[in-house]
């Protein structure tokens, strides 16, 4: 007997009505229920950041929100935010600086970096590292990611040529 919950939620601008298991996390609902697989599942306890998505405009851990809690809320995944063009400058900088390899962490990193630049348009490298400390990357060693974000800091051209 799997207790279910009816939800109505806005996902990437589209109204979605669904019946979800009460215990299903938001990231699992998005991946399995809506086939939005851009948000990834890593640690499932909130430390790695691979599941990062937006809920009512805030970056959150998709593995720590129940799908049932998205009822009446606005969800944005990497697919929606990217398609809207909001991340174009960041994505170009990531390409230019080789800030992704396998790409598993990248959706979470991009959404988090975007949130940083919105709240602090001119972050230092230390501030970038602190803000992105909840997004683990196993491939790049982080330097290129910091370079990419720093290259978009207002008023600076980054310290990397």
């Amino acid at each position, binding site marked *: 007997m799997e*207790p279910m919950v009816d939800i109505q939620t806005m996902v990437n601008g589209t109204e979605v009505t669904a019946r979800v*298991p009460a215990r299903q996390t938001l990231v699992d609902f998005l991946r*399995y*229920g809506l086939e939005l697989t851009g948000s990834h599942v890593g640690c*499932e306890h909130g430390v790695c950041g691979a599941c990062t998505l937006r809920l009512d405009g805030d970056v959150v*851990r998709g593995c*720590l929100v*129940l799908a049932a809690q998205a009822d009446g809320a606005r969800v944005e995944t990497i697919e929606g935010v990217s398609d809207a063009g909001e991340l174009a400058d960041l994505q170009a900088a990531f390409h230019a600086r080789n800030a992704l390899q396998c790409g598993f962490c990248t959706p979470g990193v991009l959404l988090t970096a975007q949130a940083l630049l919105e709240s602090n348009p001119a972050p230092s490298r230390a501030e970038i590292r602190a*803000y992105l400390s*909840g997004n683990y990357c196993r491939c790049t060693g982080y330097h290129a990611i910091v370079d990419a974000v720093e290259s978009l800091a207002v008023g600076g051209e980054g310290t990397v040529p």
Partner: protein
Amino acid sequence: MKWGSRALKPAPFDFVRPSSIAEALSVLSEHPEAAVLAGGQSLVPMLNMRLVAPSHVVDIGALPGLKDVSVADGWLCMGALLRHRDVANSPIIAAAAPLLGQAVLHIGHPAIRNRGTIGGSLAMADPAAELPACLLALGGRVEIVGPAGRRRVDAVAFFTGAYETALQPGELLSAVEVPVAAPGYRSGFGELARRHGDYALAGLAAHGRIDDGRVFDLRLGFFAAGDRPTLATAAAGRLEGKDLSAANIADAVAALGQDIQPVGQPGCGAETKLHHCGVLAKRVLGQLAA
């Protein structure tokens, strides 16, 4: 739909989302073993790892009136559902209790702070949590609602053990209150962790009055050092009325062993934690003196 067989998924539960405090209390009295879901940043990991398997999860996120911030009669009153992010951004809280805005920035990462709540943090009473120690340092209290009505519990009586508080089954923590900082009072905060956002290996929230270079009414709230947040009364007592010279601080640090019963963890033994507490005492008391 297909889930991985070795994945971290909660055991089944019934989900309830009450729309009033009365409804929430009614559900909790009917199901005393239900888990209360606020921000979910501590509870949902526990559900995912099946450290807890409640029959019901009661989502209190829709309850009205639990996100207000106000100052009245010398007390700063904050609703239990305030997110850590809201505390960091609140000018009222920055003016009335700057320690809180300073402390919450050490809680996890931005995504965690966007969801985690101050009431949830205090009710969970994780020994490594920042806010319980802040409440002790500030001489604060919590407001609790339950079947018998409202009651207040002072911080010194609220934290009773690891993940244990004075909350009884069927009760909800509804508000957090701290005295508004009086003139001359200053606060300091420090936390040691290996990486940004890691759980603290040791931490200190301090509050006291500085008068002509000397400290009075000093409260040193240590966290991640024992099974609950701890006021270092012996150490603070050695500094009462004295200036924060290196010698006086060292004298206070020497008394920490009387106040703190450190509980070791993998990678940080009890002796090391006590040492860390001394290091933090020097750094944070330096903040008060500056």
